[in-house]
């Protein structure tokens, strides 16, 4: 227990902040994923074959390649890519990107591929009559999407999005390889300095279980709230 004390003697406060970091990375990655999903879902549902191809390429590649490989691509390639873009604008200094940004971008792109599939499935399961009714009522395209389709889609998507959230939360443990101090990295440091890996990795497992448990409870509440009247 003294290993978990707060302050200088134990690892309690370090692990607490590491847990906050895991939550922060997960939420950022999830939002980055939504952003990608909002771009790629319309592409996958588009009438045009070329756009379909782009959308399918994204989801197939990301879901078929290990997360760790994507993280290595971002970790080793991220600053190179940014520097290349900067060099076009005439900036040649060395740019180092923060591990938080690299990590949440990498996990975000992965989570985005899963979210895209969820959104696509949800939109496709909305009754065609809803689109037609909206059209008949003279609602414009913008209104059709934001007032009619999106609210219905979100309700259908919540159960599957909770799976995506779980995947994203667990994937953040992989960012520890880039040195970002989240639960896994902090446990690695603590295990190294106290020579007690069994305790710290088991504790990390408990923290992850706690995070998944609490988030499931919250999402279930959301699900109930948005299923009223169905």
């Amino acid at each position, binding site marked *: 227990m003294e290993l978990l004390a707060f302050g200088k003697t134990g690892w309690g406060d370090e692990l607490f902040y590491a847990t906050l970091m895991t939550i922060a990375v997960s939420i950022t990655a999830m939002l980055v994923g939504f952003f990608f999903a909002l771009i790629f879902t319309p592409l996958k549902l588009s009438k045009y074959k070329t756009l379909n191809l782009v959308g399918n390429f994204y989801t197939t590649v990301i879901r*078929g390649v290990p997360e760790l490989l994507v993280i290595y*691509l971002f970790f080793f390639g991220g600053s190179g890519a940014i520097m290349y873009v900067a060099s076009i604008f005439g900036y040649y200094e060395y740019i180092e990107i923060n591990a938080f940004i690299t990590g949440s971008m990498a996990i975000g792109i992965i989570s985005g591929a899963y979210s895209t599939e969820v959104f696509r499935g949800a939109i496709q399961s909305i009754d065609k009559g809803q689109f037609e009714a909206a059209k008949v009522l003279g609602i414009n395209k913008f209104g059709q999407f934001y007032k009619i389709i999106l609210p219905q889609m979100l309700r259908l998507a919540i159960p599957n999005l909770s799976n995506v959230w779980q995947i994203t939360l667990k994937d953040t443990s992989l960012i520890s*390889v880039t040195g970002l101090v989240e639960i896994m990295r902090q446990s690695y440091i603590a295990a190294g300095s106290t020579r007690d890996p069994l305790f710290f990795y088991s504790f990390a*497992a408990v923290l992850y279980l706690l995070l*998944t448990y609490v988030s499931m409870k919250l999402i279930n509440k959301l699900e109930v709230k948005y299923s009223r009247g169905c």
Partner: protein
Amino acid sequence: MDFDLMITSFPKLLGATVVTLKLLSASLFFGLFLGLLFAILRLNKNIFINKFAYGYSYIFRGTPLLVQIFIIYFGLGQIEYLRTTFLWVILKEPYWCAIIAFTLNTGAYTSEILRSAFQTIKPGIIEAGKSLGISNKIIFYKIQIPIAIRQSLPAYGNEIILMMKGTSLASTVTLMDLTGVAKYIISTTFKPIEVFIVAGGIYLFMTFIIHNVIKYLEKKYSFQQ
């Protein structure tokens, strides 16, 4: 684009793919048995056995695979007693630790897939078997298991692909699998994009094969025939 690097790294990555495939096939093989065992335990009426099986799958599905590998590889070695038993022969090898972790992980997911497949079997089928005078044991082995396997094929196909991606974590415990070698080449040449294209291509090719094999099996064993 450094095409020379892509060509020279291809054989090295292909060699590492063998390690990935070995890890994958071993953990899927053991994981399927473990999954079947725990699926049966989940359907047991005894509440303790039932809860135990649920706890197993909850813990292994609720924590990252990385934590599981680290607990087994770094953590278990700490227990003095284990070092004196024959288990230590297995546990000191990162290769076997990775397989144990992957097996336990995929076993948890497989047990959930099989459990839901067992539960979707229509009671009428079992009743039909009973009224034909077939013993409970035969009903289970000859009727329930084949139907459950067919039912769970699509979900199990996804699990195989997830597990294939999961084997990349073996590289964190010093194993040189496809991701491990890819990372080594990236960190020595600093050409992440080229290596990513080659290694990612190999992974995608494997995904493609698995996907199509499962699709073929689904068609072959579909009920409509």
